[in-house]
């Protein structure tokens, strides 16, 4: 299980004077298999998630994943950290389901036979085998998110970070995504507004105004969050 370490991390998106801090002196060490992140819009959750695969480099402080500094070892970090976004349409690159799942593998220099074997396995595992040659843009919202997730998981990342992957989904599709996540052997960091997805998690962080204001069990963290939201 890769250890995630944040040391006095602060971040602003622009250098202009008066630009708001989106993260303010966050220090954390996360080694639990399931970590949830909750908080109001604009509280710093998504920036925190993006730090973990080097999409955002902190203005101050250090982020390390499995000992690798995201500032200097971004490529190695991204090979270990899969990232799933809220909107699957922005994440699906190839026109058909099979091609999109194969996209990440092909760029890693695997042989065609290896790619085919891993893609077929992933499509079967996540219930997309019947849609293999289907145009990705004609999938339902839930199927698209499942495809986006499969395309990340097929590369076998050690850590999976998800930024509100169920926000655009109905309850049934959100439950399908939750089932996939529950069975994963990888460490998972899930940013979400669907609090019920976190009940079986090991640890939940509550963000508010760029800081972690609570860090504990799902029950306590969710209670704290509800109180905070008043």
């Amino acid at each position, binding site marked *: 299980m890769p250890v995630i370490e944040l040391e006095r991390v602060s971040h602003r998106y622009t250098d202009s004077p008066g630009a708001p801090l989106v993260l303010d002196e966050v220090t954390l060490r996360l080694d639990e298999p399931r970590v949830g992140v909750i908080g109001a819009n604009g509280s710093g959750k998504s920036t925190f998630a*993006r730090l973990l*695969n080097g*999409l955002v480099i902190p203005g101050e402080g250090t982020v390390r994943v499995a000992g690798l500094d995201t500032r200097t070892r*971004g*490529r190695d970090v*991204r*090979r270990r950290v899969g*990232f799933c*976004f809220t*909107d699957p*349409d*922005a*994440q*699906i*690159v*190839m*026109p*058909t389901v099979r*091609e999109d799942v*194969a*996209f*990440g593998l*092909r*760029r890693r220099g695997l042989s065609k036979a290896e790619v085919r074997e891993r893609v077929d396995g992933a499509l079967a595992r996540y219930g997309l085998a019947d849609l293999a*040659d289907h*145009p990705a*843009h*004609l999938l339902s919202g839930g199927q698209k998110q499942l495809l986006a997730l499969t*395309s*990340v998981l097929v590369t076998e990342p050690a850590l999976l970070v998800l930024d509100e992957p169920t926000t655009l989904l109905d309850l049934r599709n959100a439950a399908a995504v939750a089932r996939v996540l529950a069975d994963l052997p990888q460490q998972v960091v899930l940013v979400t507004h669907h609090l019920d997805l976190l009940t079986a998690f090991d640890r939940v962080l509550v963000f508010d105004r760029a800081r972690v204001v609570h860090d504990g069990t799902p029950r306590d963290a969710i209670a704290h969050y509800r109180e905070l939201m008043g």
Partner: protein
Amino acid sequence: MSAAALGLYRPGTSPLHRAPAGWKLLAMLVAGIGSVLLDRPWQVLVALVAVLGAYRLAEVPWREAAGQLRPMLWVALAIGAFHVLVNGWARAVVVVGVIAVLVLLAALVTVTTRTSDLVDAVVAGCGPLRRVGVSPDRVGLVLVLAVRSVPVVVALAEEVRDAQRARGLTTSVRAFAVPLLVRSLRHADALGDALAARGVDD
């Protein structure tokens, strides 16, 4: 909008589906260069029949073949009208016919070829350009993103048009173009993040 109507891959086992992507691209290139030799309506008609025969061979329904021409209808009409007025009807038929043949041919290649195979062929074809500093992988990625952007922008345009209708702004060009542009740019931004997250260009 269906995949075929957008010129995207349509699974199949026809000889054209099985033909190597590189050969199909080469054939399209040769046809494009050769099209300058067509200067009589009957020659264009022969070329059109040949292309439609290729669609038959690829087992693509006629309706879908005709659908490939729909997006260019207004442009073709404008070009045709211009040539009728300036050069006469025969030239108009040749010019519009050649454009139609080439559009149909290009669509036939994309309809019968997986994008990943097309990209492989383009990347292989661009290999020698490495010597002058061109990255074939980047050329391939640009091709992928162009193909993928077609249904995305069509979907965005449909959403914007629906929102426009809901607000009763059906005749406002600005009310259509501005949100479409903003949403397309936002999508491009998000896609850039997603590509970076997937380690593209690392």
